[in-house]
């Protein structure tokens, strides 16, 4: 058969060594009444050329970035991925290794993850980082659990301009794990700073305000937020912390090429979607969640952590560390149930960050910023189109048009452009949805050319 390597002769010898007559005999522990007495209703196996033909036919029915100019964002971006990322991160030794439990035989992946952790710290401005989580939304949920454990409180406040999927995932986790998720309202695309202190003091464990204790474990803000706006973290974070809550900041790791990192502005926990770091869009996954925090929360961290240590002869080396936090040791008292993480994606992100380096990350961030601002200015000059929010932005912004947004976007699509994501469709339940009528979210990465941006503007003009 396809990927097995035993001949009939081998099978005969092996059965002889075991002392049974048939392979069937090896399944004697499964009661006959429970056995499947027919073939699975899945077609018989196909040859390699046939499989490739079938898969190519399916792929051909998708319209990908080789056919379209992608201005979509909202957590997944069409950044340029240097050739080194595929060439180095996808090497078969990295691709086909398991989690590096056996340090001596895994120094390669261990060191690469240690370097990944370090570079995530450098980008976020934090003290410690783990070796990845599933993706951005579950990383935020894990950050909440740290905050619940650190503060002993039971509620989180989530800004309503945090990625809608992150908010949904937090709600799901909250319902089962037993924490309450409340909404921090926004105004003009950004967190309503003036409303924040009042909200923090209102959310207490008891209705009697004089005797009540504060109950907000953490406030989650995203910057740049889902609408692309950059939040005033320099003012928001101190407000959060003055109420004794942790400031959890979700961020775009590339924004730190230009903007002050959340860590530099005082965040307690920084999480985010690592997709911009050299990961193909792949219709939403696999990506990687990253998490960085301050040293004091290290032992509350979920997931794998690689530590630097020495071997018996004093040589520098690496191993998984603080494993007593993890499920295989602590079981129900573990900091999280995560086991398999996103190792290969962390490897890609590591190679990507190393390829860019200090200058490269500034260059990528700078080009995103310049191209997004060029695009925004040109789009806003088209009659019937305007920028929805006045807040500063990084690589993404919301456009409002006078016409029906879905018609505008399909007109662009016919000209080979994915102009943006219609916001009312994406998050219809949001209180902001009505206000976002005929709005779309547009992202401009360093990969988009001036010609593509100009073509987008023309397409919008004639839409």
């Amino acid at each position: 058969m396809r990927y097995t390597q035993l001949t009939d002769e081998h099978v005969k010898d092996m059965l002889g060594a075991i002392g049974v007559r048939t392979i069937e005999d090896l399944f004697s522990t499964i009661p006959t009444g429970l056995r499947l007495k027919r073939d699975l209703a899945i077609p018989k196996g196909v040859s390699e050329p046939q499989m490739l033909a079938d898969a190519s036919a399916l792929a051909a029915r998708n319209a990908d970035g080789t056919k379209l100019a992608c201005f979509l964002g909202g957590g997944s971006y069409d950044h340029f991925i240097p050739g080194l990322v595929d060439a180095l991160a996808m090497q078969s030794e990295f691709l086909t290794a398991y989690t590096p439990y056996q340090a001596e035989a895994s120094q390669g992946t261990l060191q690469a993850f240690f370097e990944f952790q370090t570079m995530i710290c450098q980008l976020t401005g934090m003290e410690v980082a783990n070796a990845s989580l599933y993706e951005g939304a579950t990383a935020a949920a894990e950050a909440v659990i740290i905050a619940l454990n650190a503060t002993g409180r039971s509620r989180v406040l989530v800004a309503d301009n945090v990625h809608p999927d992150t908010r949904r995932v937090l709600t799901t986790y909250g319902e089962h794990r037993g924490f309450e998720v409340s909404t921090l309202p926004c105004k003009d695309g950004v967190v309503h700073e003036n409303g924040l202190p009042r909200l923090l003091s209102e959310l207490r464990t008891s209705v009697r305000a004089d005797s009540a204790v504060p109950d907000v474990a953490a406030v989650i803000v995203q910057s740049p937020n889902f609408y692309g706006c950059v939040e005033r973290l320099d003012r928001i974070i101190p407000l959060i912390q003055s109420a004794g809550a942790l400031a959890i900041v979700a961020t775009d790791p590339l924004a730190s090429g230009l903007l002050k990192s959340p860590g530099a502005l005082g965040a307690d926990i920084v999480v985010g979607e690592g997709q911009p770091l050299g990961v193909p869009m792949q219709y939403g996954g696999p990506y990687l969640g990253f998490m960085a925090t301050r040293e004091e929360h290290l032992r509350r961290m979920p997931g794998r952590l690689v530590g630097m240590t020495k071997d018996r002869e004093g040589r520098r080396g690496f191993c998984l560390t603080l494993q007593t936090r993890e499920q295989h040791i602590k079981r129900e008292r573990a900091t999280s149930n995560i086991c398999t993480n996103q190792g290969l994606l962390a490897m890609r992100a590591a190679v990507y960050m190393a390829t860019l380096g200090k200058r490269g990350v500034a260059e990528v961030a700078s080009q995103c910023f310049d191209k997004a601002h060029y695009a925004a200015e040109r789009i806003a000059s088209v009659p019937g189109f305007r920028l929805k929010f006045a807040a500063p932005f990084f690589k993404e912004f919301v456009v409002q048009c006078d016409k029906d947004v879905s018609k505008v976007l399909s007109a662009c699509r016919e000209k080979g452009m994915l102009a943006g994501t219609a916001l009312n469709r994406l998050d219809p339940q949001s209180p902001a949805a009505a206000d976002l009528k005929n709005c779309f979210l547009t992202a401009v990465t360093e990969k988009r050319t001036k010609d593509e941006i100009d073509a987008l503007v023309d397409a919008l003009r004639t839409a």
Partner: protein
Amino acid sequence: MNAIPKLQQSDFPLLFELGAPGLSALNLSPCDVPRADRAKAMPRELLAEAPPPLPEVGELDLVRHYTRLAHRCFSIDENFYPLGSCTMKYNPRINERVAAMPGFAGLHPHQDESDVQGLLELLYRLRCDLAEISGLAEVTLQPAAGAHGEMTGLMIINAYHRSRGQRRSKVLAPDSAHGTNPATCAVCGQQALTVKSRKDGRIDLDDLRTKMDDDVAALMITNPNTVGVFDAQIADVAEILHEKGAQLYLDGANMNAILGITRPGDFGVDVMHFNTHKTFSTPHGGGGPGAGPVAVAEHLRPFLPVPQVVRRADGSFGWDADRPKSIGKVRSFFGQIGVLVRAYVYIRSNGCDGLRDISEKAVLNANYLAAKLRHRYRTPFPPPYAHEFIMMPEFPGSDVTDLDVAKRLIDHGIHPPTMSFPIAHCLMIEPSETESKATLDRFVAAMLDIADEVERDPQIVRDAPHTMPVKRMDEVGAARKPVVRWRAGG
């Protein structure tokens, strides 16, 4: 311990010790739009004064760095990897090739359904194939890994109980359960309780009965279980649970032993997860990505996460979010799509005939190893085994441990088996179906050789490995004073 000798340090540098200020391996086209006025576009307080201090390394040195790191790992492509419970089988290259096709890898999750019909059809077929393999009614592809599937499954079970006006706070699992099972209970705000196993590795039904009450939401079980035996009482287990309205959850980590032979839905399971990175050969990638699709019985379908990939009445494919009883979303977007594409290619390449053959050969290989080693290493549970088995490296009168034996295997170019799970000091051996008889025989020879060495020259075993770039690590020191990042100046 003394400071690290300089020479040894420079033998294998960190990224941060390479390169020089000003270097970068990035080569973008020059920016072709006017520069935006930063002072006008961004408050000064938010602009960075300097870029983050990422390493500065040229292209060739980066290539060498990561190539050398790659040479410092064991992998399926180079080594036999009989890591029990992890199903380290060959990862077919065609799967990589398909997943990398721009028509799959280059799609944005917000594209219109009409732009991604081919992918949605693939996901729909995969969803149906997995339902067929599980013998259950419907599958969600959303969970990111096995543990995430467990969480999703438990949430579905809890939503079901709540829909019947019940909140059940306890979840049972056998003492041999994987750590993620109890850890998942905690994530779901539930109490994990242990059910005893019998001497033969099977669950103790009497103990199960005494622990059952109306507050038990579910039992999480692995079958074949983590000691490598198929528990023939599984239908009775299901009955005991169902009598009290509790649900039977199957940890599908060991599906590689029963593909096309028996189906969880047919032996009483209500919910299960798959590990595509085990059973369906999506590469482990040094610790992920995986995917943990969850299959449920008919009565649990309303609670599956949204959105669900569906075939519409007109034959087109799309996402359906209209499930009012759904538990909601468990991750962003739709799932580990690139991983799911690989799993689909693997399932369809093998087909119904190949899938069954996989389990037959996986079981044959495991039983062959056990038969060849049993005279030197005690196997505490009676054969026949499923796709893996437990073996005890016991050497009366010697202080050589299971860990030493495992480390010595590294010198034979073999990755150590899983150690001390699910019982202390055991080795859990899972060869997988893709290994040749020659490789299995080499493993047997290595294990016998090590047993001889323990008698002849135990120090060699205790000091192993000898052939790796480093010796055993000071893991205790690493945990006592954790250094999880590099800093300039040490």
